[in-house]
């Protein structure tokens, strides 16, 4: 997100009711500012900034929460290398992200384009299509378990109409992850759809008229007008979706509990297990910092790409 440059400084002037010297007024403004910020700042320091620093410290400890911690150095990070569950959790998370994000983007973009075809009742369709986004992941995860029931669950019943005999989705080595991905795309496409709709509606109509005059085909117009003009929204949705996908937890916990085997164990689930089932807080903190590292690297890479691919009309 682009951060606006800070506004011009408030013109320094004496308070209307007082004719004190300038520095006095300024110190009063400073005091007022700190009073306004204080409630948020205390909470922020205690519950966000402090814990981030503490995560770094905890990652250097052997600690099960109950006994007193001992210093472990970088041992927790070294444990990651030979830990097959960590690598499969990382692999699963990457698999989930790199399939679900493009799919979500495609579905939301297609629906936004559809809704943007000069539809009169657009608000009704938009709200109904946004409904999955406004449901609770845990609750709808249970419905999806039911839809995925191997014998005659709705999904396999529908596949049966086309002569396909569907797999035992959530307990299948190969299909458990795609099943989670399908549910996640369903749950989250609404967000991207709304962002794209806003982006589409901000594209000046003249550009389309100009393309028409030039005799562009629908595909050419999409390539040369819609896509570049939409690229800032696209960039935003890609970045937020990837960050969100790296943190997937709820649906995997409910629908597959990480199984079969560890086929759908995601990084966050592994962090949760390590910290709150095995009480290995130091190791869990080390894992969470690695997750953070991945998010930073991927986000930074996207911002580098953004400079080449995203069109901003300033």
């Amino acid at each position, binding site marked *: 997100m682009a*951060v606006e440059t*800070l*506004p011009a400084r408030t013109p320094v002037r004496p308070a*209307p009711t007082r004719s004190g010297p300038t520095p006095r007024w300024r110190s009063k403004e*400073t005091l*007022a*500012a700190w009073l*306004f*910020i204080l409630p948020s*700042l205390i*909470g*922020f320091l205690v*519950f*966000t900034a*402090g*814990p*981030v620093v*503490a*995560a770094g410290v*905890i990652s250097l400890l052997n600690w099960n929460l109950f006994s007193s911690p001992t210093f472990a150095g970088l041992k927790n990070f070294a444990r990651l290398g030979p830990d097959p569950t960590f690598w499969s959790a990382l692999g699963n998370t990457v698999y989930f992200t790199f399939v679900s994000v493009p799919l979500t983007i495609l579905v939301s973009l297609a629906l936004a384009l*559809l809704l943007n*075809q*000069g*539809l009169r009742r657009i608000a009704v369709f938009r*709200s*109904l299509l946004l*409904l*999955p986004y*406004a*449901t*609770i*992941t845990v*609750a*709808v995860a*249970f*419905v*999806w378990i*039911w*839809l995925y029931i191997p*014998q005659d669950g709705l999904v396999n019943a529908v596949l049966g109409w086309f002569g396909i005999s569907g797999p035992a989705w959530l307990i299948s080595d190969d299909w458990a992850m795609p099943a989670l991905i399908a549910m996640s795309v*369903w749950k989250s496409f609404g967000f991207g759809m*709304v*962002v794209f709709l806003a*982006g589409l509606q901000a594209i000046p109509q003249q550009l389309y008229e100009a393309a028409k005059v030039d005799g562009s085909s629908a595909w050419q117009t999409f390539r040369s007008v819609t896509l570049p003009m939409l690229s*800032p929204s696209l*960039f*935003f*949705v890609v970045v937020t979706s990837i960050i969100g996908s790296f943190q997937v*937890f709820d649906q995997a916990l409910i629908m597959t509990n990480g199984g079969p085997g560890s086929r759908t164990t995601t990084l*966050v689930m592994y*962090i*949760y297990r390590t*910290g709150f089932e095995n009480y290995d*807080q130091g190791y*869990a903190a080390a894992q*969470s910092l690695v*997750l*953070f590292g991945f*998010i*930073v690297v991927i986000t930074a890479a996207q911002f580098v790409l953004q400079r080449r691919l995203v069109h901003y009309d300033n």
Partner: protein
Amino acid sequence: MTRKLVVFACFVVTAVTLVPVVMMVLVAFQSDAESMAAQPSFWPGSWHPENLTRAFELVPLGRYLLNTIIFAAGTTLLETVTAALAAYAFARLDFPGRTWLFGIYLATLMIPSQVTLIPQFVLVAKLQGIDTWPGMILPHAFTALGVFLLRQFFLGIPRDYEEAARLDGANRWQAFVRVIVPLAVPAIATLAVFKFIGQWNNLLWPLVISNSDSTRTAAVGLQVFQDTNGTQWNLLLMAATITTVPLIVLFFLTQRWFVRGITMSGLGGR
């Protein structure tokens, strides 16, 4: 595409999208035998509205819902009030250190909540806050995102409005409460709706911090439901429906703000 085709496509896509939500409600009203039959049926053979009360009797669902409301409303209220105050100072007041302090706030935006999960848990445990309301609410009541969003909005409010109030003798606090806050109601409401829905959905934090019915939220409670009752699908999905419906109602009542909020954040890249 012709208009009729567009409308038809919209109907089909919407219908397919809503299938899981409709199924959740339909199965919730089926009989025990029907919902657990080897061959699930989609339309209830007979309707059982008493499932509604049975779900409340099987687990303390009412208590869980009340807990969810306390948790979501508590975090939302604290977040919006403190974020609005801080955002005002960052947007409008001049003080030494403003730039770097705001920089620190911004820097934490990208940190996944899992990084702070363990230290927050340790902190709450040390303060004897496990299974208490302060322990549930406080760690999730202050985020940089709220400050960031509201500051962006406050920057867009013309300075003249506030200056006029100040010339009329209003102090900073009065200018904030009487001029800025009323103008910022849409932004504050957007933040509140986002926060409320996010926390109603929150599973991980209540899962680690609440360990009895006195603070357990509905998202966590649904899991207990599954553990204790296997696959009694009608009651499980009735509970899921009961947990989801308040959110859907809230969503429909506030969706103008919700959509505007998504749009606002979506255009943040421009």
